[in-house]
């Protein structure tokens, strides 16, 4: 059943993509792996960056949430600074996910997070601490990483 719902959401996102977001299958041979290209929002230190966000849909979708991870390195309190680039926030948590949620909403949520990090739910404590106490340095480093990793 999940296939049809995923196909439908894909069609919607391709035909009318949300702002700053472009979606495609990583490979047409797998409907469950999506590549999302996300532009760093204006006014955020990620501006002018283009981030690859990987979306992995579970076979139980929509009963289980998609897994969202950054394929481009990013300096952000809510994204793990490891080879996984994982995030865990609000609607993406298994216990808070609702099958009625849509992938478009997930992606908009992820992009909004670039504008407004949530340091209280940080996965990178040190970045969170810096974000709260030394915003200037945070902005500087986030910009530097964006320039280094997120501009082709």
């Amino acid at each position: 059943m999940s296939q049809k719902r995923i196909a439908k959401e894909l069609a919607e996102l391709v035909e009318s993509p949300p702002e700053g977001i472009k979606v495609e299958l990583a490979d047409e041979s797998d409907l469950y792996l999506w590549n999302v290209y996300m532009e760093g929002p204006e006014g955020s230190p990620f501006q002018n960056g283009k981030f690859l966000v990987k979306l992995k849909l579970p076979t139980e979708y929509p009963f289980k949430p998609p897994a969202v991870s950054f394929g481009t390195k990013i300096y952000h309190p809510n994204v793990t600074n490891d080879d996984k680039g994982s995030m865990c926030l609000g609607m993406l948590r298994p216990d808070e996910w609702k099958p009625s949620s849509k992938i478009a909403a997930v992606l908009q949520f992820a992009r909004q997070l670039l504008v407004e990090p949530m340091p209280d739910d940080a996965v990178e404590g040190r970045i969170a601490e810096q974000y709260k106490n030394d915003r200037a340095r945070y902005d500087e480093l986030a910009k530097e990483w964006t320039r280094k990793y997120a501009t082709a």
Partner: protein
Amino acid sequence: MTDTKMQVDTPQETVEMIKHGEIDESLYSRQLYVLGHEAMKRMGSSNVLIVGLKGLGVEIAKNIALAGVKSLTLYDPAPVAIADLSSQFFLQPEDVGKPRAEVTAPRVAELNSYVPVTVHEGNNIAEDLEQLKRYQAIVLTLTPLKEQLAIAEFCHKNGIYVTVTDTFGLFGYLFNDFGKNFTVGDATGEEAVSGIVAGIDDTGLVSALDETRHGLEDGDFVTFSEIKGMEGLNDSAPRKITVKGPYTFSIGDVSGLGTYQSGGLFTQVKMPKFVDFQSLGEQLKTPEFVVSDFAKFDRPQQLHIGVQALHKFAENHDGQLPRPHNESDAQDVLKIANDLASSGEDKVELDEKVMKELSYQARGDLNPLAALFGGIAAQEVLKAVSGKFNPINQWLYFDALEALPSSTARSEESCKPLGSRYDGQIAVFGKEFQDKIANVTQFLVGAGAIGCETLKNWAMMGLGTGPKGKIFITDMDQIEKSNLNRQFLFRTKDVGRLKSECATTAIQSMNPELQGKIVALRDRVGPDTEHVFDEKFWQGLDGVTNALDNVDARTYVDRRCVFFRKPLLESGTLGTKGNTQVVLPHITESYSSSQDPPEKTFPMCTLKSFPNRIEHTIAWARDLFQTYFVGPPEAVNMYLSQPNYIEKTLKQAGNEKQTLEHLRDFLVTDKPLTFDDCIVWARTQFENQYNNAIQQLLYNFPKDSTTSSGQPFWSGPKRAPTPLKFDSTNPTHLGFIIAGANLHAFNYGIKSPNADKEYYRKVVDNIIVPEFTPKSGVKIQADENEADPNAQPSGSSFDDGNELQQLVESLPSPKSLAGFRLSPVEFEKDDDTNHHIDFITAASNLRADNYDIPQADRHRTKFIAGKIIPAIATATALVTGLVALELYKIIDGKDDIEQYKNGFVNLALPFLGFSEPIASPKGTYMGKNGEVTVDKIWDRFEVADIPLKDFIQHFADLGLEISMVSSGVSLLYASFYPPSKLKDRLPMPMSKLVEHISKKPIPDHQKNVIFEVTAEDQNEEDVEIPYVMVTLQK
């Protein structure tokens, strides 16, 4: 006995019991997670007597022997008759004439070497009641009512638990008398719930944090801890609660306790419950029923009288029950029943048809009923002797009259005994139906617990024994010791043998007519084995019975059954719970139509920094196990064996540094030469995980820090951690070192010296561990000294290009290490000497100490980390009995959905529930010639292997505008694709298109391909239409 004692198994106590051989944990492992140590210990001191050894008696004996009691005694001096073989799986044709109990006892004894099985001597058990005092629990089957009364009365007075049970054809009943003031220690067996308190108001209303369901029920008891304000609630006596909503409950009066400020946890406490049972005599007059099927809510009263009428009939006829399908006997029974009904207090209006069926079938002996009641009755005995779970209070009646065949006629002639082993079944269904059963071809997927019981049922039913009959069994597993406690076709000597083959041999000796009728296979059923289970194989089946233990395999078999349109019988158990489902082509929905709740997973950030339950620390410890002993050794081996491994790693978009660091650590920095080096490594890891990482976290989020909204940061689900100071006299600390050192040594093939704890302590106390200083801010550290003890545990450092190069350069070349390989650890939960569960237990408990979460012992940690599915033979036997009843209906060819039943059972509560299967969903679309109705599951479109453009046109002709086409997980066509992309695809035949996109050839044995299509109909609405099957030209 206090209530908390009942559920808490202290690790020391467990260790002692295992040491003294009181509980063989490797044998009873899965059942221990159902019953607990305490209940099993009580069972281990109980002597049980089973009276009557036909099919039902032997089922009960089997289940109790497997479960484990102090001793099991059997009583049945009657000679074996050939008809007994209809359900008594431990009897052979050559036993005819010998006393039943005597021939059965040694065969039951083989099931469990810890349970001695003997025969109770004597010719009439009711005549010498005094000797019953040897037993704690007695089960009566095949016992005349007068004797039941005498024995049950004696038991009632002498504190002996008694259960009476019998089956008559498709009817069965059970009665319990566990005496006055019987104590139920744990009524449900459900885990005690706990949660975080968000608030308590001055009326005593407690709210759970973050709208988390508290999971409590009215009348439950809870205790509190860590509450600020209202401190009086902490560690006070358990408070009884009233549920006010899913997130709130009331604890009543809280006056004088002050005002709630913050924090707090609630924990459910299981309180013992007391039940007064009445004697059989009283209960015959004023029965208390447990309803088994709400569709037949007035049936218990009817059967209560009917069964008494049968006993009365037998009394009048020299102990003989009414003859099969004999009209005059049935009239007799009806008359007796009517007399009983009119003499009772409530005048019951009898259903003549039911009474007559009871009489017709009284001599019937069906194995499915024996399996069902054998499971129920054995669980009742275990409840009696252990005090675990709520007993049946006091009568249970059941019937499965829907299973009577309608495709074949029944008459006195067709139901009369033929001197065959199936006479018990023929008495109910007639000879003609017996022939139908014999000529069925069934496929059993799995030969585990459900598989063994199912095969036994089939052997007794004579399924597949006819000229056109056949049974296919497949299972890729070999027999393990922990299987023997439920999978009763296997013995200790069979450990290591293939399940399907061993089970085949076992049931062929149970019913020799199965010789040459069984094909045992060893292939996992799945996409990879479609050349084995090919089209021809599936076409040849009449039906499929699943005996699987995982959702993926179930879903796969379900899909195949839908595709080949074969009926499927599905079942599963979880502890004392069981469910059964019937899937019928064109009639019901399929297994995959309903969704089991997905496996519970935890948010990564909870695991990483904010655990608040032991489940979180166990999941974290399981990850740590992987990070230490599995991942890096695998990476090292790849580095050493794949020439371009580094290049590939550097190309990874993520954090390649971590992989490189692991290689460096495992090949250079941390590479041990001696076992002592492994101890040093383990000690360093302790410091990193339980001291340094915690210090760093507290540096970033000090205990008094606040969130952006001004709330304390460390509150609610975020528990403030405390760093641990290593102490070699603390058993958990040392346990981490011992398990960690041994596993690290295993990676390097360094032999463990099998040293005692003193040795580890001595080594570890001499290690100098550098002081840690938390880091401020974040630097991109290019020049950091690699060996810096302040370095973060890997995974959160920040890198730079030239550092990566330095890392690569620090690695020894694969050539210089020719032949050198590490041994990654393969997680195995059931080997108690391999340190795996020891490591996870210690690692989890240390983290629990960091966060002040109560520790879990090794047993519980193993349960959670190993994702062990608790299991007990009683529930398994029961579900297979229910499944076999549905199989009768399928063989009969019933197409009326109302005759079928899906079952939901929980033996602990106890609860039996049935529902009619859900009909397959229908849909409509507006076609060119009006509205078309389709069965969304069983219908399909069939087209030849035509080009994509013709495919699209084909549907357009039907009035369906295709927007997307997929096959498997490949997306083949979407209407939004640009023409340039479609140009090449449109002329491709569908099969080529699939191969082109999936980049995989269609295997030779595959004769068709399935496509999923989304489309708009003539009303321009998205419609859900069935799948499309494209037949390949081969």
